[in-house]
């Protein structure tokens, strides 16, 4: 490969594509009229699919060059940038899995928008591609300032996606999403400046080996927690999530649940644990408590929802609680489980939002009571829905099971009570998911409008079936992932132990 900067290429390919689409659109603006608006949108979507597909291929190539046997950062690119900040990129087992998840979900999101996004399609594609660049950048950055830039920048395209293509209450949801996340991130910024001044560098590897004073660690940890807790999201700062999810277009929800939430867990594993080990130990009981509250409370809240998307949004909060539990158990099972759970939840909840999107596009309502008896008209849909319901519940054989069981094993070693609380959540998740499934899919058709509903079309199948296959694959052969992430998980724990 020589010195080819494959990570930079992968990160900025979508951005370059977005610029090209914008320029082409501006160049053809003169010859355009209202009647062609539809075809122009399709062309833009096709271009977006090609670009994001190419990005996926590049990420696969990067993965091929990645050596899972080595625990440290690989494929590193470094250029001096500004003061002691460098443009540094690299991946390890933790980030490469999340990058693959990102590049895999983005084309699916664009494809899923084929029929459901009908206005300002070109801008939509551009926003998605820009968002993809920022999401990948978050995972590839090996410099704290560079990370922060990508981390915050992602808010802008997501704000636009929710605000322009969202549901009726989109403006409220977009503002809430933006401001909630921003307030957390800005506290992190103060901490970033502090760390940069203390360590004299913002390089991850320097910061990992720098020992912050115990007292400073506490404050830094809290500042980072302010940001990641909102992003993950943890109870009680999760309230932006249901609003954002419900109002966002289907693809927006997929990428929100699939990738953006993972940045919180990624942040905990990348910064909180290795850089502030003392503070992490100090706050472990708090995090366990918050995780258990999140799992139990939001599961119960999910049960009472009448809106399908809101239900899945709350279930996301609950499942992210398992990630918190795993991360803060400080042992291999917990950390590995947390990474796996992030990946698995990205696939499963992404798929569930797509599943909801399928019927929403047909009926334009997400009310659970408007459905019932879908199995009679949509057998394929019912089957896939069943698969993902079970995966979300954590049925053995699906990837959801592996993530939950491992985080609970890890949590059990650290605190029996925390694991006990989390286990309650598993039961509750079965309650709300099965209730959802029963009320929408089983029973007789009561809503006459459902009589003419059609089963999934080819595009929808292309979107969802790969996710279904991955769910089962990772459920049956979880070692595919563990082999990649093991080195990184152990490295995080070693750094924590002061090694």
């Amino acid at each position, binding site marked *: 490969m020589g010195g080819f900067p494959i990570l930079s290429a992968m990160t900025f390919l979508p951005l370059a594509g977005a610029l090209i689409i914008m320029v082409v659109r501006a160049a053809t603006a003169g010859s355009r009229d209202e009647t062609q608006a539809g075809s122009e949108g399709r062309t833009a979507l096709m271009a977006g699919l090609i670009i994001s597909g190419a990005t996926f291929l590049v990420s696969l190539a990067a993965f091929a060059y990645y050596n899972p046997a080595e625990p440290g950062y690989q494929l590193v690119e470094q250029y001096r940038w500004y003061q002691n900040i460098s443009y540094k990129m690299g991946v390890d087992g933790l980030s490469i899995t999340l990058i693959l998840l990102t590049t895999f979900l983005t084309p699916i999101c664009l494809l899923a928008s084929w029929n459901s996004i009908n206005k300002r399609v070109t801008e939509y594609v551009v926003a998605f591609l820009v968002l993809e660049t920022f999401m990948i950048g978050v995972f590839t950055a090996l410099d704290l300032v560079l990370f922060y830039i990508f981390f*915050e920048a992602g808010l802008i395209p997501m704000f636009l996606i929710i605000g322009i293509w969202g549901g009726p209450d989109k403006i409220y949801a977009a503002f809430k999403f933006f401001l909630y996340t921003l307030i957390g991130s*800005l506290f992190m910024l103060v901490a970033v400046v502090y760390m940069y001044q203390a360590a004299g560098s913002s390089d991850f590897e320097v910061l990992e080996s720098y020992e912050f004073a115990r007292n400073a660690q506490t404050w830094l940890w809290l500042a980072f927690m302010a940001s990641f807790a909102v992003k993950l999201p943890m109870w009680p700062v999760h309230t932006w999530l249901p609003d954002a999810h419900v109002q966002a277009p289907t693809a927006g929800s997929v990428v929100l649940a699939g990738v953006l939430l993972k940045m919180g867990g990624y942040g905990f594993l990348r910064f909180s644990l290795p850089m502030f080990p003392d503070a992490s130990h100090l706050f472990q009981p708090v995090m366990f408590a918050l995780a258990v509250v999140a799992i139990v409370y939001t599961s119960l809240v999910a049960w009472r929802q009448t809106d399908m998307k809101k239900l899945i949004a709350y279930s996301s909060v609950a499942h992210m609680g398992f990630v918190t539990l795993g991360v803060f158990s400080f042992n291999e099972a917990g950390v590995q489980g947390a990474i796996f759970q992030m990946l698995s939840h990205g696939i499963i909840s992404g798929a569930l939002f797509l599943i909801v999107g399928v019927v929403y596009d047909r009926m334009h309502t997400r009310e659970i009571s408007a459905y019932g008896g879908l199995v009679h008209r949509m057998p394929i849909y019912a089957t896939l829905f069943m698969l993902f319901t079970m995966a979300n519940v954590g049925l053995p054989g699906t990837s959801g099971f592996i993530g939950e069981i491992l985080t609970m094993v890890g949590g059990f070693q650290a605190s029996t009570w925390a694991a006990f609380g989390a286990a309650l959540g598993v039961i509750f998740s079965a309650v709300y998911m099965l209730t959802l499934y029963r009320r929408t899919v089983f029973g007789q058709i009561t809503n006459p409008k459902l009589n003419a509903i059609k089963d999934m079309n080819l595009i929808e199948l292309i979107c969802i079936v790969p996710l279904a296959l991955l769910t089962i694959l990772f459920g049956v052969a979880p070692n595919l992932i563990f082999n990649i992430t093991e080195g990184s998980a152990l490295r995080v724990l070693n750094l924590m132990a002061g090694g």
Partner: protein
Amino acid sequence: MLDYTAMILAIGPELWLAATALIGVLLGAVLKDKFNAFAFKFGALVLFAAAAFSLMNYQGGEAFNGLVRTNTFVNFAKFVSYAIGGVTLMMSEGFLKRHNTIRYEYALLTIFASLGIGMTLSAADLMTLYMGVETLSLSSYVMAAFHRDSIRSSEAGLKYFVLGSLASGMLLYGASLVYGFAGSTEYVAIAAAEPSVGMMFGMVLMIVGLAFKVSAAPMHVWTPDVYEGSPTPVAAFFATAPKMASMVVFANVMYTVFGGIIEQWQMILSIIAGLSMIIGSLGALTQTNIKRLLGYSSIANIGYALVAVAAGQEFGAGPLLVFMTLYVIASLGLFAGVLSMRRKGGMVEGINELGGLMRKRPWLAIALSVLIFSMAGLPPFGGFFGKWEVLNAGLDAGLLPLAVILVLASVVSLGYYLRLIKIMWFDEPTEKFEAIDGSVTFTVIASAVLTGVVFLIFIYQLSGWAGNAAAGLAI
């Protein structure tokens, strides 16, 4: 015997401005209205040349027995102020033409104001400082009232004049106290003098006067009214070139004159900075006039810049230059954006008039969005590094509470910045704006590219220049 070489080295650009301004007056007297046709190009050319001059004499020097002394720190500010002054002049021509107020006096006033800017920056003596401040202020009062048939413009001019005179009076009284207790008006001599209570009184009054000139809270009340009432190009000028210069003058006075007694004024400046950030960002939340909104946002941004001033010379001088440069470029672009809000009935200023701009003029909307986010200090735009530098300076100096206020004010400010984005991107389109002069569109896009992208990637360059410039202050 005057040493002409030293004079040119020290204040070459100002001599050039004074000479060309007088030539301009003569041209006006001879050519009368015929001068109107090319006065603006003449003025812009003069200012760009002055900017080039200040780069040529970048190291600066001393002249007039220590009445003026320049160094890289002030020359950096001179360059930015002159160059931006020239751009605002270019943008003004079309606007004034359409309002039938195209008169060569406007261009000459801009040159005179710039001369005032140069003198305040070059000052090494309280007398020079005061004369510079007054040259700038008197030109500004007239410019604010330039639309003399408009009640709002006259009101803005009068308001600015009355309040500005009060502030000048404070500055002068403070200067006289300092002189009385230190025994000299020279910066160096005052810095060397034994601090006394009387001198502190003088210093506080001077801070009040200077804070008025940069529109820092609680001396900020004139800003929104003057911005709103003045003709838009005048507001664009006020918000950029004099802001940059006054901020640097403020810092220069605090660092060189009172640098030894930083513990006496750090708290005062911290309070002014904190108040400006809070009042500016809260005040902007409810504004519906874009110029008022930008007025309040400038108060908030001045608050951020004052954090760098309060951090002291060692930590704050370089960051101040970086922040102010990025801020005034973004400000210039946004005011150019306001200038392009023109419909058949004339200019419009309500923020709702921007509705759906993304669908009518996508490139303008994208450029304005970049400028807004950059001004908000949000990554991935260059403005982020302005805030980064200021935060660094504040934390270096141990001003943690101020850093926290800065962060919280940033969140609040996003409330109105995002509202602008929402109006441009989400709302239903309103009637399309009329086409506007090329120079205005060019300014919007160029400043967006500059603050948004160029100074993101090449921030090390800007920061390096500013750092070197700040190092010149120590000599």
